[in-house]
């Protein structure tokens, strides 16, 4: 395993984070060390892995709790309350920079 600095710049760009070259160099070293550590799960053989079929980590009866797809006044009593948390908003809408030329 060896991760390059350009791999890390690619990961940063995919995750929409600006990264300086210095930071990229440090992250490359660190992420490479972590990947080196987690590699050990490859020791587990396919045969062993098959033995886990049917055992699930979460509590039994664990399932998705659903609710009706209707507006919930308890959750958002007032949309202006929510909108006021946006860094930039206007006329009841979240404001962003233009995306079309």
């Amino acid at each position, binding site marked *: 395993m060896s*991760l390059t600095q350009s*791999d*890390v710049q690619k*990961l*940063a760009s*995919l*995750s*929409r*984070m*600006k*990264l300086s070259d210095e*930071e990229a160099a440090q*992250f490359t070293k*660190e*992420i490479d*060390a*972590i*990947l080196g*550590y*987690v*590699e*050990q*799960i*490859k*020791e*587990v053989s396919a045969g*062993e*892995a098959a*033995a*886990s*079929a049917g*055992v*699930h*980590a*979460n*509590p*039994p*009866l*664990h399932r*998705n*709790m*659903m*609710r009706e797809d209707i507006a919930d006044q308890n*959750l*958002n*009593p007032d949309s202006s*309350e*929510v909108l006021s*948390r*946006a*860094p*930039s908003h206007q006329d009841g809408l*979240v404001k*962003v*920079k*233009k*995306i079309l030329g």
Partner: protein
Amino acid sequence: MDTSKLTVLEIRDMLAKGSVTSEQLVASYKDAFEKKNADINAYLEFFNDALDEAKKADQKRAELIAAGKNADQINADFPLLGVPLAMKDNVVIKDKVASAASKILEKYASPYDSTVTAKLKAAGAVFLGRVNMDEFAMGGSTENSAYGVTKNPHDTSRVSGGSSGGSAAVLAMGGAPASLGSDTGGSIRQPAAYNGVVGLKPTYGTVSRHGLMAMGSSLDVIGPLAHTVADIELLFEIIKNTDGDRYDSTSLTKKDIEKVAAEHSSDPAKLRVGIVPELMNVGGLDASVVEAMNKTVEALKAAGCEVKEVSLPHMKYSLAVYYILMPAEVSSNMARFDGVKYGSKVEGADLLGDYLNTRGELLGKEVRRRIMLGTYVLSSGYHDAYYNKANIVKDLIAGDFKKAFESVDVILTPTTPTPAFKIGSHTDDPVQMYLEDIFTVTANLVGSPALSVPAGFADIEGKKLPVGVQFTAPHCREDILFAVGKKVEQGRGF
């Protein structure tokens, strides 16, 4: 009045007898905050309305008494009336700032209460303030907080642990009688051990995550920290789900919880405690931790427990599995912080520039490291080797526990390999930092409840540093943890 060692149950009794008011209690904790917080940095904010809320609780008690209610009736209807609590900075309270110790949410005030906040308010609790943590709960020392490290009150050259370091240190410094934290891989139990307090990670799904800032959604759970197991039990009963939570799709109902709990049968008069010999050979285990384990085993035997050896052959992979699954979930959960919908923003030349600058400048190093790691393990070509394989190994670990719980009721391990480490000693080596989680991550992976209880001290450099031991129980059997935890409390000599 010295409130530094008061338990929640003692406070309830004092309030019921009228020997203290909630207002006096809050004033006393405020005093501790003013004297100690500049040094310890447990609180990020002591709420300026805490005293007013305490007065309201006192008025409410007076009204209930005037209406003919006795202390038992008041405790039944409002089990925390006037009891002060501290809240971790990633669990939201309506109209209070909840920053998750990040710059990106520095000024964010929540428009709603989390489910646990609502339950605690309904029980009559008074929130003292919000406490420090690693940014977005990512870390084991609070050194990743954007607002400075929380020092360990037992030795201020050492960390208080994390991520719920503030939740634990605030108790050790006498700044609150109990607090809430969140636990994704040990974030309640590890700081509880480092600070000499009790911490519970409940069964996944028994406490609603609605209003908890998501980190690893298949692992996250909210839980209490307090001075005694009895306090933990009281707080857990108040925050746990009754009819599920329509705002948390992974929550269990009361009926589910009872059904799951009934799957394991145990004899309360003769609890079977499992120890795992292979874990005691883990490198770097401090002598004080081994001693605390041995003393705990002796105390449990003396209390009538049967102690048996069990094997968890795949537990050695827990940390590796955790550091694949958790960052994968982090990379997805953190996508919402984009400088558009809420939080702070750093302007760029265009919309993409806004994203790059906001996330690049306002998210700390550990958060960005985990987002990139998660992006890597989920990327095409690596997904099978990392994420899918980790899920398979997770189920193998769950199988180990299932088998072990056929012969024991609870498993005893250290909480951490060492007592609290020095501030700055692990910051250059993430893998070394992650190894502090080696005993705690497993409970999150298998969804089991786990409790850390104080079990001794290490004498290091003239300071007495607390050491904790951890108990893990079958799903929804927190009752076994409380029973065994109380035996440890009674059996230890301090």
